[in-house]
């Protein structure tokens, strides 16, 4: 039997019950659209979590002294040989050398423990500092010995741009360094916790205060997470005495949340589509039972069981394919409306505690589209197995006697 005729038969069967098939088709379409949109949101959340973790002065890859994480301080600093950048592979968006040491900051009225970070402001486009809003002035360069402090810290210390703070930290010789610093500006971060944690000053200025020419970290931002493994491996060769770590190791909580949401996406898809499968099976079985006489007749005049099976499978796949296409189109339409981001400022506080931003931007991943389409078609084919078996089991004689 020619394939063309088979397709024609299936196609006509679908159109024989327009209303029933339309309902099934819209159920599939809505489910696919829903799963797809949910998917973009999960991907958005995932992306957001990852970016937040990376911009949180981590970068995709970071070079640290092996003891630094257990005991952060300038005594865990290291010198960087000139020309180390040559070890960087392609796809590097930027890198920054920093000193990051614990310090205590004191105003006239309050005292707080913070992380004092010496930066070259021009290189910090790779971290949240690059696009943080600053009232007052930004740091002018690595030699700027003024401070950039977070808004919440400024409130806690009851201070403001232009005033002075006293910082106490440990110098490279192990002795206490204590000095007054003027506040250049006050930054606002999307993640409020950062404002309390980090106080910035010029890298060179901090090196002078601590009496060192070392740094404590190099942070490297890549064009995408997929280049992380190669970069980590590439740098490990040139920093033999240091640890080259990925953001997954440095931000394990964010990394595991990203992984969990990956799994959640698949579980959700399987649940929703699994439920739909029963609907599909039901419709197909009904269609087969209605056509008992017709199928019996076809068998009697010599249609092979294989062809009967093929006919049901084609029917099922066609419904599924139309449903998926409609669903994906719907999803794309809705996605276009929300692609600029959903404002969640009303829930700001609780989201921030998960390390998320107040504006939520869904992300459309083409691989997920392919995955949904392929998995749906496979499900469609599998679910046609039972109705097809029923169709094959029809005995031509019995069917014709009805």
């Amino acid at each position, binding site marked *: 039997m020619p394939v063309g005729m088979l397709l024609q038969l299936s196609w006509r069967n679908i159109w024989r019950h327009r209303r029933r098939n339309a309902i099934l088709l819209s159920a599939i379409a809505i489910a696919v659209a829903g799963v797809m949109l949910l998917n973009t949101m999960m991907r958005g959340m995932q992306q957001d979590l990852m970016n937040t973790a990376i911009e949180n002065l981590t970068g995709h890859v970071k070079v640290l002294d092996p003891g630094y994480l257990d005991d952060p301080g300038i005594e865990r600093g290291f010198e960087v040989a000139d020309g180390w950048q040559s070890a960087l592979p392609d796809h590097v968006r930027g890198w920054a050398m920093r000193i990051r040491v614990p310090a*205590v900051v*004191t*105003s*006239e*009225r309050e*005292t707080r*423990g913070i992380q004092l970070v010496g930066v070259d402001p021009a290189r910090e486009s790779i971290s949240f500092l690059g696009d943080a809003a600053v009232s007052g002035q930004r740091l002018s360069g690595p030699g700027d*010995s003024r401070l950039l402090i977070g808004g919440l810290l400024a409130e806690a210390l009851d*201070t403001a741009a232009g*005033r*002075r*703070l*006293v910082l*106490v930290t440990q110098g490279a010789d192990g*002795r*206490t360094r*204590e*000095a*007054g*610093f*003027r506040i250049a500006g006050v930054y606002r971060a999307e993640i409020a916790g950062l404002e309390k944690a980090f106080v910035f000053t010029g890298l060179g200025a901090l090196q002078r205060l601590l009496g060192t020419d070392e740094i404590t970290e190099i942070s490297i931002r890549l064009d995408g997470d997929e280049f992380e493994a190669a970069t980590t491996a590439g740098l490990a060769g040139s920093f033999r005495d240091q640890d080259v770590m990925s953001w997954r190791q440095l931000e394990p909580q964010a990394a595991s949340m990203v992984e969990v949401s990956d799994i959640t996406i698949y579980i959700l898809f399987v649940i929703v589509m699994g439920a739909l499968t029963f609907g599909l099976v039901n419709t197909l079985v009904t269609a087969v039972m209605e056509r008992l006489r017709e199928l019996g007749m076809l068998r009697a005049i010599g249609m092979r069981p294989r062809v009967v099976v093929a006919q049901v499978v084609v029917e099922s796949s066609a419904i599924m394919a139309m449903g998926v296409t409609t669903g994906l189109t719907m999803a794309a339409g809705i996605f276009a409306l929300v692609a600029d981001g959903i404002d969640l400022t009303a829930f700001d506080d609780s989201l921030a505690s998960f390390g998320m931003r107040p504006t939520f931007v869904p992300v459309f991943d083409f691989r997920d589209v392919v995955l949904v389409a392929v998995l749906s078609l496979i499900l469609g084919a599998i679910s046609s197995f039972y109705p097809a078996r029923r169709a094959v089991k029809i005995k031509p004689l019995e069917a014709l006697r009805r």
Partner: protein
Amino acid sequence: MLIAAAGTAARPAAEVTAQSLIEGALDLTRGQASYTEMTMTIQRPGWKRTLSLTAWTQGREDALIRFTAPPKDAGTATLKKGERMWTYAPKIGREIRLPSSMMSQQWAGSDFSYNDLSRTDKYLRYYDFEIVHAEERDGHTVYTLDLIPHDDAPVVWGKETLVLRDDYVTLSQTFYDQELEPVKRMETLEVGDLGGRTIAMAMRMQSVEKAGSWTEIRYLAADFDADVDATLFTTFALRGR
């Protein structure tokens, strides 16, 4: 007459400078070595307590302060040696090195910070000072000094004013924030003779913003040329006995 007196005082004799006044005030209660006994009264809204303590100093850098009463606090001691500071609590049975970040925090729950206790010569190092006012009072010339910390000084205050008599007795000291609003003020309640010197016998440190909270220190006995054993300023001696 009064105006004339004030006028002459406003142009102090050549040897009286802000520097000499501050150095004199610093050395007045220190000497080469000193031994003092005092009580400290802490007043808070709702409660008040008095502690007794003994202090030894040597030079401008070393000091040992030990509480002697009440029994709950007796034996607790603080040692300052150069820039470093330790505290010892008998209940824990070991000395703890105080991070210098604690130097600006309250000492023993009082209104004094560790820094207030150990003034050393930081005024000479970190401040610009000048005599802004001088007047005759009770037979003494009383000088008002403005102390302005250098920009990079480890001092949070915007300004301090110090009121000193010509015999170096501190009458009051006020700490201003960087908007030049007063934050806390120390006032001398009583001037008297002790250990062969005329000193501020009782002082009260009071927060300007929180009325009803203050700490008072009163000298009971003092010897400003005491024979103090140098081994006293060790962490071993901190444990006492």
